[in-house]
């Protein structure tokens, strides 16, 4: 393509880039202009590139899925983390530069995932035996659900790193190490389809976050770090027990050990065991989300964590809870998930959306307030999952991304003021809009995204979730009252967010300490720019996100619907059973470990019961 063609094809991106460079006032540095221009041009390019065009679906020849792409995404930060250990700690720029390069390559590589049409089923699947005697495999794959969460991770972590290097001045080497390790763990957890592997990554990311809070945190950091660790650990241990029970049951049924998620999806546990295992898994995830009443670790962890840690914690780590609930709790135990959905939705609304919002309103520490607002926002995500309609689940996944973007931005913004004043008490502020107008504008934009004003990202997700709730069959007679409760949440969101905005930015500028605060620095504005742009991109063009997750969500939803029905119907009081393979879509089972001996009891329904009579019995 000649340069002229390039200009003609991508003129909106070039125009947007020039516009972005013009936005800062006259005395702005070249770095800021170039940075903002670059970010705007890239964002525009991103939208152009993903824009659905006529015939694109047919024309898109399936490009080769490079099987090692996911390995690269997981391994790169992990290897990078190891490499950081060999860089001398005095070479600060090298440490930072190396981290940027690793995270940058990760982000660019993750964009590759978007080139593949996200049809139902697994993509970029890679399987390798790890511990064959126990049936543990290295099995990673991506679908339309994890796609956006992986992208969110690779998108937010570099921003968090960039912002952190502005405020963290001690132990840079350790910070780089923790950051890269965290990145690897999170991506791995989003991609793992082997329960053992998932558990490894799930625990792996706990360690660097523990360090981040414990080393670079605030005054009470050690206590908060331990609380964070113990809460999450308590859940994961239960999950481990349930995983082992599930694997053992599967081994009893088929004679093969496997930790493979796809294979284990076929197991229908006895009723009581099903319920126990569902709770063991879900409790681990609910703690991570966090759902009421296991949410109290979150405000403490956020308040003590450094800005970068808070951003990653809120933007990505909490999503692991919601993602894992969607993938594993709903996938492995659809029966109890379906039976309990109306009750759990009630908890999500009362304990999350309403309670979280009301408690947020009463917080005087801005960071604590934002942390409680996370509880409220993730209540919407969980509600979307409990409603189990394609709409609600799409809304939930989009809301996960939204929350990552807007709450990530909010934490960055709180970090900005904390760096200047070393306090986050709202009473210390007031009238900041006069001294820090750009900061105020950005804060206001992010606030309205968080409140869910249409045109910003928050609206689309909440809207889909609310509509999905009303049309949900799972919630049955409660759908109406749940909808009312969830919709009432939008009022409270305005109450607490506007409260903090008014207290901080409006009114007279009374506190003399605030009189000469500098506005956003170049680094801060460049870190915030992509997040603010994404707020509008998702708000105006959600289709480019929803289209890529739609097929996977439909597959997941249909499977959940069918299997939950089967599980409720066939679950026995005492025997575990194996669902026939044809209950599942072949796209889902692609990559399942195959048995060598061909005696698999593949008959369904009554036949399988007969076949199971002999060997399918599991004694306790």
């Amino acid at each position, binding site marked *: 393509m000649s340069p002229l063609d390039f200009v003609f094809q991508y003129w909106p991106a070039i125009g947007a880039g020039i516009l972005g460079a*013009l936005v800062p*006032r*006259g005395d702005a540095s070249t770095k800021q202009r170039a940075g903002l221009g670059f970010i705007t041009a890239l964002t525009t390019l991103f939208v152009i590139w993903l824009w*659905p065009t006529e015939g694109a679906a047919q024309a898109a020849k399936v490009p080769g899925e490079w099987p090692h792409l996911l390995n690269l995404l997981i391994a790169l930060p992990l290897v990078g983390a190891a490499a950081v250990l060999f860089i001398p700690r005095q070479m600060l720029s090298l440490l930072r530069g190396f981290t940027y390069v690793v995270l940058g390559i990760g982000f660019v590589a993750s964009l590759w995932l978007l080139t593949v049409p996200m049809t139902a089923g697994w993509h970029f699947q890679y399987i390798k035996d790890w511990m064959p005697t126990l049936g543990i495999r290295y099995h990673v794959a991506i679908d339309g659900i994890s796609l956006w969460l992986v992208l969110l991770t690779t998108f937010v972590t570099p921003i968090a790193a960039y912002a952190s290097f502005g405020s963290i001045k001690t132990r840079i080497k350790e910070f780089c190490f923790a950051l890269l390790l965290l990145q690897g763990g999170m991506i791995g957890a989003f991609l793992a389809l082997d329960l053992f592997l998932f558990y490894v990554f799930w625990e792996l990311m706990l360690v660097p976050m523990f360090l981040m809070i414990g080393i670079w945190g605030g005054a009470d950091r050690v206590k908060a770090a331990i609380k964070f660790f113990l809460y999450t650990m308590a859940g994961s241990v239960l999950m481990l027990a349930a995983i082992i029970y599930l694997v053992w049951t599967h081994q009893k049924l088929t004679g093969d050990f496997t930790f493979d998620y796809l294979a284990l999806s076929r197991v229908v546990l006895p009723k009581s065991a099903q319920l126990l295992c569902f709770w063991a898994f879900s409790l681990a995830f609910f703690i991570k989300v966090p759902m*009421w*009443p*296991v949410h*109290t670790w979150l405000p403490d962890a956020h308040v003590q964590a450094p800005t970068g840690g808070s951003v990653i914690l809120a933007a990505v780590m909490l999503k692991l809870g919601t993602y894992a609930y969607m993938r594993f709790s709903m996938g492995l135990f659809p029966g109890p998930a379906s039976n309990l959905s109306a009750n759990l939705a009630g908890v999500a609304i009362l304990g999350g959306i309403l*309670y979280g919002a*009301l*408690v947020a*309103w*009463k*917080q005087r520490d801005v960071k604590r307030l934002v942390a409680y607002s996370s509880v409220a926002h993730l209540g919407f995500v969980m509600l979307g999952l409990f409603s189990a*309609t*394609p*709409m609600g689940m799409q809304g939930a996944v989009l809301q996960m991304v939204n929350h990552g973007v807007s709450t990530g931005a909010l934490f960055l913004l709180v970090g900005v003021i904390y760096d200047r004043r070393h306090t986050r008490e709202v009473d210390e502020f007031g*009238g900041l809009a*006069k001294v820090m107008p750009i900061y105020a504008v950005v804060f206001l934009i992010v606030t*309205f995204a968080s409140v869910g*004003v*249409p*045109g910003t990202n928050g609206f*689309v997700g909440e809207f*889909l979730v*609310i*509509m*999905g*709730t*009303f*049309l949900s069959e799972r919630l049955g*007679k*409660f759908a*109406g*009252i749940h*909808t*009312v409760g969830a*919709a*009432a949440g*939008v*009022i409270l969101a305005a*109450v607490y967010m*506007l*409260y903090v905005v*008014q207290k901080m*930015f*409006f*009114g*007279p*500028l009374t506190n003399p300490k605030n009189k000469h605060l500098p506005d956003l620095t170049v680094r801060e504005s460049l870190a915030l720019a992509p997040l603010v742009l994404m707020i509008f991109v998702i708000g*105006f063009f*959600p*289709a480019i996100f*929803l289209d890529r997750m739609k097929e996977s969500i439909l597959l997941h939803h249909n499977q959940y619907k069918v299997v939950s029905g089967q599980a409720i119907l066939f679950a026995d*009081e*005492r*025997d575990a059973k194996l669902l026939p393979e044809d209950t599942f879509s072949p796209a889902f089972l692609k990559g399942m470990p195959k048995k060598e001996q061909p005696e698999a009891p593949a008959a369904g329904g009554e036949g399988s019961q007969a076949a199971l009579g002999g060997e399918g*019995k599991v*004694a*306790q």
Partner: protein
Amino acid sequence: MEALKAQFPATNFTLLAVVLALPLLGAFVNGVFGKRLGKAGVRLMALSALGGSFIAALATFLLLPKGEGGGTLAWTAWRWFSLNGRMGQTVPIDVAFSVDAMSATMMLVVTGVGFLIHLYSSEYMVKDPGYHRFFAYLNLFCFAMLTLVMADNMAVLFVGWEGVGLCSYLLIGFWFGDEKNATAGKKAFIVNRIGDFGLLVAMAILLYYTGSLRFAEINANARNLLDPVTIWPFGNLPIESQWDAANPGANAAYKAIVHLFLPEKGVQVYASTLVGLAMFLGAAGKSAQIPLYVWLPDAMAGPTPVSALIHAATMVTAGVYLVARTSAVFLMSPAAMATVAVLGCATAIFAASIGLFQHDLKKVLAYSTVSQLGFMFIGVGVGAFAAGFFHVFTHAFFKACLFLGAGSVIHAMHARIHDTDKSQDIRNMGGLKKFMPITRWTFLLSCFAIAGAPPLAGFWSKDEILWRAFSTKIVAPEVGRLEPLWTWPSWLGQGIYWVGVVAATMTAFYMFRAYFLTFHGEFRGWKIVAGWKEPKHGHGHDDHGHDDHHDHHDDGAPLEGPKPHESPLAMTLPLMVLAVFAVFAGFLMAEPIHIEPLGHMLSPVFTRAHDAVVLRAEGVEKLMWPMMGPGVAAFLGGTGAAMVVYLNKGGAPEESFKKAAPGLYRLIYDKWRIDELYDAVVVGMVDALADIFTAADKWLIDGVLAKLTAAIVAFFGTVLRTFQTGRVQVYGAAMALGLAGVGFFLVRPHAEATVDDSKLRSAGEVVISAAPGPGYTYRWEGTGTEQKDFGVVREVRINVNPGETKDVKLHVRNAFAQEATQSFAVTRPGRGFPSSAAPVPLVPGTVVPAGGGSIPAKDIPGLINPRGAQ
């Protein structure tokens, strides 16, 4: 014209993009580059954006397909996202716009009045440092408002709906340095959000029943909403008889409570009523109706042009627009229509009563707006959608004119007083007619228009609404042979009519009260200068008022400051244009004299109203001219009374009323203290709830989950630590105790067995296997084969016939010749399972034989009951 038509086909009418894009561009440029552009640049950008938008809107209006069926012009921008309907069908939500006669008229109002107000503001705000910010917000508001009126579906309407709320928030709090303004903005946004909550719920219900959010399809499928929904008891709550059946032994007090809450049979309403009420909640929030009107009077904290544009002419009428837009839905529910009409009527008279004694000129106009919005809701509530909408149209002109006139007055007063509150107080005005003639005349004409003086604009629209209320009723839609759930009572319309007439009288009274106090009599503004310190910038150009006010110099303070003066042309020109419209706009739909071009244009929009809205009685149409009498009398009476009280008697009767009934006067002046009521009830409750939750979060949840568990672990740690003394004697003693315990256990025999009853139901076979132990021998009783002595048979297999119960006894003897006994009862259910036999209560202290795949005994009552032990 034809060329334009060819350029813009009706289904891809890209001119709408121009209408929308120009204000958005203006907002962006002014917001981001405004400070660099300078005031002239900002003014040029803002005015040309709105001007261009107005021209495009005018072209759209002219290109609108004419004819019987009406027509729409549509433009789809892009696919926003898609939803799923009840049957799982895809419901695409596009960023799409379509324009029919009603939205085209609204577009003209928004861009036209908007342009005039932009022009006015360019002078009014000229000294403000936030000039560019102001115009960015104002342009953004116009964009959002245009999105609202042009939206093709509810979701896009909601974008505009919240967008205008957002701009309103920003503009009310424009002077955010004052806490009061910021609070007013926040209040407006939150109260609007309560309404938006209703709109969200309404959208969910509409999606469920009509399977679409597009207005065209909602209106077409509105009959699907005639589905009865049980609203109480909801969820799993039973109706009273079910509860009684489930709880036969409940005591009387409990029963009484249940009787209070659970109905005899479920309360049913049509889904259309739910949608209508939810939507009206949204409309009430935006259009400041009871119970959500409280934000609008506070919203006057914003700059006056904002009050004119947003809080009088355009945004607040969005609720009326919404009801008219979804008229087909409302027509499916006479109950919802009646709610709209009655609450509109109540708002009209309630707000008018507050307006009677307010001192703040803008507050008077604000309550007047609330009251006039009430009239509009009466219109759409009684099915006179065109009339209600027409009042939106005329009200936009005269109320904008009144606000801008008030702004002009305040501008002049502010030059003297430099205090926002005092410069708006009509007690400080008076006699301004000789200083500001243009403002005075336009204000007067608009007062005539709003008071309903024939043949000005307000007369035609208000009279039409009241006449429709008087003469028509809403027929319930037919649902098969079922009785309608609610019918429109015949007295309702007449009641609304008479209340409306009283409200109209009050309107005339308070408007002319404001007029006379502002423009007639002596200028009282001289007096308040006394306490005012002359700022440093010296004397104004024509200060040192008149010689006849020299007495005020006596108290020492100088009589400084400029005298009030007429505003510049950029401010008076919009006043004059608006006044012309306030006078003549009525002839666009003057039904009694059959000049109604707008009416003809609008009628295709409301075709469905023709069947559902019928005359109340035979021959009532002959009363049209006579029923105009009370309306005219209201104008004459109200105006006359105001003239007598404030022009001829100088306000003395108001003073005497204040003395005669001070409590009532205070109450009305304090706006019936509704704000205080809300603060105490709603806000107080939510606040208390939040406090309780916050405390519970800290002490209860965190206390139990984190602190208590930590305390328990610490406790056990402490207790167990005491054993770890490091002394050999203690360890030795513990070991001896432990060994003794194990020894005792081994010496005692344990008659335990597992029961496998998996084949009991099918084959009647039960396997009982006793637990092994050191030197155990077993003796079984009741197994069929009698056993005299202890043997080594550890497992017995017994057969049970249907309906039979067998008692099996197990004796165990161990190596120390000690014996223990355990018995089991095995019952095989008869043919009709479950058997009616009452479950045999478990003997306490027995252990249900566990494991071996057995099911818990409580789940199989009467099957197996271990009885007795040892």
